[in-house]
């Protein structure tokens, strides 16, 4: 249903008035701290992807045979990993918090408070990290 522009125009009314249309400035994401953090959050995808590609290479190199196998250990690589870790932590923090606030369950017909869900997300993160770290380190002794 629209506001119909019909009816007799008696006065020398101007044709449909011009509006000034909105154009999004290209640098919009720098104009507000939240927008910037959002952009960083989305950008984490890139470093994380690169690091996983490295992992793929690391796996592939296991096919090189015992003599030629040499894991990466350059300073540059460590620095790269530190940077990636910062992004990874930011991704985990934002993703789990946000996912926690949108998940909704009911237990005994009562909604589970979002805080609790977020907390359990972080608990799951901690648990997964401990298990993975354990496997990665423990089996190194064999």
């Amino acid at each position, binding site marked *: 249903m629209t506001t119909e522009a019909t009816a007799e125009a008696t006065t020398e009314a101007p044709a449909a008035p011009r509006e000034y249309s909105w154009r999004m400035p290209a640098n919009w994401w720098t104009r507000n701290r939240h927008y910037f953090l959002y952009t960083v959050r989305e950008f984490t995808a890139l470093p994380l*992807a690169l690091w996983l590609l490295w*992992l793929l290479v690391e*796996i592939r190199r296991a096919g090189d045979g015992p003599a030629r196998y040499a894991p990466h250990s350059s300073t540059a690589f460590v620095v790269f990993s530190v940077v990636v870790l910062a992004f990874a932590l930011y991704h*985990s923090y934002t993703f*789990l918090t946000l996912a926690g606030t949108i998940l909704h369950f009911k237990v005994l017909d009562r909604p589970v408070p979002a805080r609790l869900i977020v907390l359990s997300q972080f608990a799951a*993160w901690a648990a*997964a990290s401990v298990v993975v770290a354990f496997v990665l380190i423990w089996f190194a002794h064999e």
Partner: protein
Amino acid sequence: MSEAVKPQRLALMHLFWWFMFAQGGVIAALLIPVHVLVQGILGPLGIVPVVDRHYDTWVSVLGNPLVKLYLLVLIAFPFFHFAHRLRYLLVDFGVPAAKSVPAQVVFYGGAVVVTLVTVYILLTTVPI
């Protein structure tokens, strides 16, 4: 009157890619930091022993089918997440073309390629 009647259909492709994005995001959030920390920092610096530091341990772990499955999940799923985010990031930076079907083919296709490569590598490297 002036209302443009748009065909309204549930966009199933969007739904699927969002689902993959969400799954990948969870996997990435739960698992990636610890791998980066242990394999990317602690291991190379020699602070703790890590499986991939020695050929023997690395191979014996990679030979385990469960590990292979785990690594597939760890690597493939997040790529759907990354593809989705980077595509939208391009949109945010004023490249609406990133929404087009060809762009979708490139981004999600890329994730599919990474998945296939991962499967290939996992199957061919240290076969079970």
